[in-house]
């Protein structure tokens, strides 16, 4: 099914600062995975993190989400901002599809019965309502990623974090997940932070592109500028990456 969705490519009103990273370092043993990251994200922005493998995209998302501690520096979220993350390879718990989603709500204080009702609504958003009673582990890769998406949607996040959400999927499943993502983005003014190797996806979904290399931010530009303007002089590393010479 080909659904053409218009995604607004304008820069949102940059008044409400939602997330701020100040001089963030993350160290694994002797390896510095993130170096002096400074970043401001405003409500409603759709930020894509791009870069070669090992550049620090996933690490940065995990730090922002709060599941990975920083070695130094600070991560500030505006108080009360609900955030949810979809991982590259979602882990399915050994339970039914509906319970899998309801658990996320229950852990955030929603009573179990109400959580199941809300979970069903979230499953409808990703077309998985017919599989609500099935064991989550028996779903295909694409269905599992859609389920992970449903779980994230269920908590009504003001900020959604996606770590290469389609990279481990076959082309058909990839299209399905992208269609859901694009629908969701078109209908919500939620902040979106995602990492991707798929530059077409970045072009379609992001309003701002951040290029990382060896744990450093080397370019932070509006999407139009990142893809359409010459970067040889201003951001030579990003230019080489776009030419496929930094993979």
């Amino acid at each position: 099914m080909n659904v053409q969705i218009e995604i607004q490519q304008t820069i949102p009103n940059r008044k409400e600062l939602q997330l701020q990273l100040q001089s963030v370092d993350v160290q694994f043993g002797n390896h510095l995975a993130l170096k002096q990251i400074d970043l401001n994200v405003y409500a409603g922005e759709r930020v894509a993190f791009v870069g070669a493998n090992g550049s620090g995209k996933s690490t940065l998302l995990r730090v922002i989400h709060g599941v990975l501690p920083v070695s130094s520096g600070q991560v500030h979220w505006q108080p009360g901002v609900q955030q949810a993350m979809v991982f590259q390879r979602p882990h399915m718990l050994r339970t039914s599809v509906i319970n899998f989603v309801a658990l996320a709500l229950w852990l955030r204080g929603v009573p179990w019965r109400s959580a199941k009702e809300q979970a069903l609504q979230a499953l409808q958003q990703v077309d998985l309502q017919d599989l609500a009673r099935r064991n989550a582990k028996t779903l295909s890769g694409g269905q599992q990623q859609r389920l992970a998406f449903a779980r994230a949607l269920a908590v009504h996040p003001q900020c959604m974090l996606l770590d290469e959400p389609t990279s481990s999927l076959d082309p058909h499943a990839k299209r399905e997940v992208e269609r859901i993502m694009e629908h969701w983005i078109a209908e919500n003014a939620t902040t979106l932070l995602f990492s991707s190797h798929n530059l077409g996806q970045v072009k379609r979904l992001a309003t701002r592109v951040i290029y990382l290399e060896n744990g450093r931010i080397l370019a932070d530009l509006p999407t139009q500028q990142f893809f359409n303007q010459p970067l040889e002089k201003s951001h030579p590393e990003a230019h080489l990456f776009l030419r496929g010479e930094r993979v």
Partner: protein
Amino acid sequence: MSSLADSAFAAFDLITQLDPMLGSVVARSLWVSLWATVIASSLGICFGAWLAVSRFYGRGVLLTLLNTLLALPSVVVGLVVYLLLSRSGPLGYLGWLFSLKAMVVAQSVLVFPVVAALTRQCVEDADRLHGEQLQSLGAGTVLRSLLLVWDERYVFLTIVITAFGRAISEVGAVMVVGGNIEGFTRVMTTAIALETSKGDLPLALALGLVLLTVVLCLNILVASLRSWRLREDGSTSDPLQKAWI
């Protein structure tokens, strides 16, 4: 050779005729080992799961100690429990020495490290793979460990069955703290040791056969669990989970 064959036939007769002495020894063995498994598994799974997700100073030392306890000789356990429960020991007032309760305590102590160490390894591996995703849902340390235990519940059934196998087949600890009193604290393993030393090979062999049958049943149970679980999980390809079964 003929002596062995005669003993085997006599043992077979004892089993098929449901010899009351044999029956009582088998029932007592099962009772003691089941209780020991329940107690050790309850404590061991909680402790192991907590240890898997916790990070604190001295954790490495505790892990080394726990892994060392896996090779704990059963007679040493028997001796320690004996000293604790003897009249002059700190728990002497309980009056449990040479009772089934003492045997349950000894087997629990023996089996606890097995359950705790296997649980710790299993939960820690699971946590490394997908603990972050549970953390992402808002699960704290304790809740995360409980969710991982629940998610890996079939593996824990295997661990519990393994623990039961260890408990029912040990002889040293129950001999020391139970005293091998006929009709009271005599269990399969202590009876086999005694009857062999007395030369009553048919009874020893019959008990040995029953013990082997129990262990065989446990193995069949583990294999059934494995196939049931793989069927339930459908096309799961998680190598860790497959490796654990």
